C-alpha cells in the first residue's frame, strides 16, 4: 500500500532546506526523527522486568494495542484530516479474517495475521474508493454506517463469523524454530509479541509521516484545494493512507483477538472508537508521540479511576468536550505551539 504513496514521490525528501547528513542506514531508519522511538522502545522493553503481576501485564498489552490503534487513527485524522469512524471496523475485519484463517485453514499464524491486515486494507480500498472524494461530513457518516453494517454482517453471516457468539478458543500464536518453541500463551509471552509489533508499527508510521509523502498528508489536511492546485492527486493519497492505516489497524485487531482468544460482534462496539478519539484529541491530533503516550494513559486510566463504565464514559465525554474547548490542539499541539514560539523568538532575536 505504501507503494502507492510514492507514485508521485521521489524516494527521498528534497526539501529546499538542506539537512544534516548522516549514515545512509540511519537516514533510512528515520534519521533525526528516530530520537523518540528509541527511549519509547526501551521503556516498552523494560515493562516485563518491573511488572510482576499478570493482570498489569495485560493492562500493558492493552496499552500497546491502544498505542498502535491510536497512532493509526492519528495518521488519518491528525495528519490527513480524515475523520474515519471505520477504524473500529478494520479492527474487527482484521480480527475476523485472521481468526477464520487460523481456525479453517492450516495457514501459519503470522501469515494469517498479516492476511487479516491485508483483508482490512483491501476492504478499506473499496470503501475508500467511494468515500474519500466526499465531503468531510459525508465521509464521517458513511464510515460510521460501514462500521454498523460490519456489526450486522458479523452477527448474520453465521457460517463464517460464528454469528453472535463469534469465533472462540483461538489458539495461542506459536513459532517453532528447530529446538526452540515460542508460544505466546500467557499475558507475559504475548507481551513480547505485541511489544515487537508495536515498536515496528510505530517506526513504520513515524517513517511515513516524516517522509515527503507525510508532508503531502499534512498539506491535504491543512488545505486540500491548494494541494490539488499544486498538482497532487489528493484522493489517491487519502485512499492510500486510508488503506495503509486499515492494514495496521487490521493487523492490530488480529493480535488483539488472539490475545483474548475470542472474537464476537461486540468488537465493532462504538466504545473502542470513543477511546481512539479521546486518545487522539487529548494527545494532540497531528502530533506523533504525544498521541502514542496518551494511548498508554487511557489504557491505564480505567485502572486508576475505579468506577463503572458509565461514570468513566461521562468522564471521557467531559474530557473530550473540555479538551476541544480549552486545549483544542491537545497536549501535543500545546507543546508544539510552545516550542514554536520559542523558535520564533530566537528567529526574531537573530534578525535584530
Amino acid at each position: 500500500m505504501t507503494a502507492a504513496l510514492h507514485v508521485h514521490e521521489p524516494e527521498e525528501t528534497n526539501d529546499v532546506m538542506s539537512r544534516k547528513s548522516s549514515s545512509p542506514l540511519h537516514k533510512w531508519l528515520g534519521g533525526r526523527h528516530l530520537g523518540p522511538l528509541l527511549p519509547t522502545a526501551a521503556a516498552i522493553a523494560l515493562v516485563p522486568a518491573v511488572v510482576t503481576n499478570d493482570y498489569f501485564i495485560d493492562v500493558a498489552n492493552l496499552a500497546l494495542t491502544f498505542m498502535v490503534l491510536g497512532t493509526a487513527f492519528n495518521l488519518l485524522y491528525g495528519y490527513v484530516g480524515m475523520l474515519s469512524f471505520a477504524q473500529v471496523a478494520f479492527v474487527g475485519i482484521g480480527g475476523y479474517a485472521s481468526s477464520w484463517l487460523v481456525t479453517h485453514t492450516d495457514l501459519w499464524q503470522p501469515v494469517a495475521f498479516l492476511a487479516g491486515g491485508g483483508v482490512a486494507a483491501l476492504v478499506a480500498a473499496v470503501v475508500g474508493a467511494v468515500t474519500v472524494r466526499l465531503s468531510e461530513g459525508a465521509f464521517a457518516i458513511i464510515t460510521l454506517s460501514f462500521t454498523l453494517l460490519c456489526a450486522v454482517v458479523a452477527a448474520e453471516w453465521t457460517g463464517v463469523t460464528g454469528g453472535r457468539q463469534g469465533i472462540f478458543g483461538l489458539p495461542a500464536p506459536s513459532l517453532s524454530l528447530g529446538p526452540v518453541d515460542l508460544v505466546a500463551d500467557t499475558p507475559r509471552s504475548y507481551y513480547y509479541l505485541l511489544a515487537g509489533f508495536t515498536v515496528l508499527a510505530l517506526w513504520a508510521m513515524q517513517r511515513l509521516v516524516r517522509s515527503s509523502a507525510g508532508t503531502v498528508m499534512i498539506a491535504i489536511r491543512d488545505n486540500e484545494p491548494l494541494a490539488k492546485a499544486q498538482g497532487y492527486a489528493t484522493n489517491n493519497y487519502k485512499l492510500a493512507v486510508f488503506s495503509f492505516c486499515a492494514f495496521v489497524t487490521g493487523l492490530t485487531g488480529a493480535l488483539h483477538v488472539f490475545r483474548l482468544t475470542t472474537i464476537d460482534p461486540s468488537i465493532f462496539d462504538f466504545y473502542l472508537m470513543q477511546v481512539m478519539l479521546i486518545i487522539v484529541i487529548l494527545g494532540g491530533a497531528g502530533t506523533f508521540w504525544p498521541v502514542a503516550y496518551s494511548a498508554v494513559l487511557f489504557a491505564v486510566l480505567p485502572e486508576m479511576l475505579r468506577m463503572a463504565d458509565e461514570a468513566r464514559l461521562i468522564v471521557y465525554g467531559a474530557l473530550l468536550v473540555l479538551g476541544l474547548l480549552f486545549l483544542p490542539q491537545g497536549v501535543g499541539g500545546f507543546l508544539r505551539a510552545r516550542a514554536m514560539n520559542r523558535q520564533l523568538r530566537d528567529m526574531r532575536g537573530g534578525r535584530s
Partner: protein
Amino acid sequence: MRTRTLAAAAALALTVVGCASSTDSPDTNSGPITIGLSAPLSGPAAALGENERNGVQLAIDQINQDGGLLGSRKLTLAAQDNACNPTDGVGSVTKLITQQQVSAVIGALCSGVTLAAMPLAKRYQVPLVVATSTSPDITTAAGKGGNDFTFRINPSDATLAVALSSYLHKAGDVRKVAILAEDSTYGRTGAAALQKALNDKGITVTGVDFVAQGTSDFSTQISKYRNNGTQSVALYISGADHLSFLRQAASARLQLPVTGRVELEGQNLEILKDEQFAGSSSVYPYSSLIKTPANAKFAKAYESAHKTPPTYESFEGYSAVMVLADAISRAKSSDPKAIQKALVKTDFTSLTGGTVKFDAYHQAHDKAFILQIKNGKTVIVSDVVT
C-alpha cells in the same frame, strides 16, 4: 524535543511500575475467602448483571451471618464489570484471578465473555462457575470437552425449548408460532433451539425475527403476526425491549398469547393480565413463586433488600455462591484447585427443589418450570428436570 520524549517515556514506565507495586500477597489459609464475579455492570446488559450481583451478594451476606465457612472465615465479593464484551471480560477475569486472588469466579453472564473467560480459568486453575450464559458451546468445551475448571449450573436452552414445545404440543391450541428474538447469543441460541424443538413436535414456525437490542419499534412484526396466521409469539428478548414489545402489542390489539422466555412478573405481568394475551405461557429455570421453604426464605430476603422479587439472574447468582460454598466446605480449603475437585462431586439441593449435580461435561441439571397466567396471576403449571 529529546528531553521531553525521554521524560514521557520515563513517565510511561513509572505508571506501569506504579500499577505493579499494588499487588496483594496471596493468603489461602486464613482471612476472608474472596469470590469473584465478572458480570456486565454497564452497557445494555447492565440491569441483568446488577440482578446477578444482588443475588451473589445476598448469598454471601447470608453465609457470613451464619458464621462463614471453614471455621468462621468470612466470604467477600470481588465484582468486576465486563461490559458484556470479551476485551473487558478478559481484563476483568485476569484481574480477579491474578490480582484479587479469588478462590473461584462466577460469570460472565454474556456467553461471548464466558467463552473468553474459560481459557483463563483453565490456565490459572481457578474454577469458573457459569450461572447465566446460555451458549451450548460452553458445555461442549467444559469437563470432558477439555476445560476441567468450567462448571455450568443453569440449564441449556435446548432442554428448556424441548420442555416448552412439549407443553405447547400437549396444550393443543397453538399450531403456528412466530419467534421474536433479540440479536444476541441468548436470543439466537434460544430461537434456534426452540425452532428445532417446535418442528420436532410438528408445530409450524411462521418466521424468526432477530431485532437489535434497544429496538423500540415492533409495529412491523406486530402487523406481520396479525396477518400471517400466527397463533402465538415466542419471545427471546430481554430488558426494555421485552416491555416495549408487550406494550405495543397491547395497544395494537394483537390478540395472541405470548410464549418463549417471558418474564411473567412485574410490569410485564400488568400488561399480560389483559384478556387479549389469554393463554400466555413461559418456560423459566426459576420463578419467585416456587413453593420450597428455601426459596420462600430467599425471595423474602431479596424482596426486603431490593423491593422487587428476585429475578432469574439473582437466583442463579445466589445458587452459584451456594454451590461454591458447599464445595469449599467439602474441600476444607479455599484453594482453587481443591475447590475444583470438590465441585466435580457436587450433590446439592437447589432452591427450586431440584438437584445440582455436574455431568461429564460439567453441566448441572436443575429443574425448570412452565409458567402460565391464570386469572391475572402467574402460576406454575409443571416442572421438568432439565
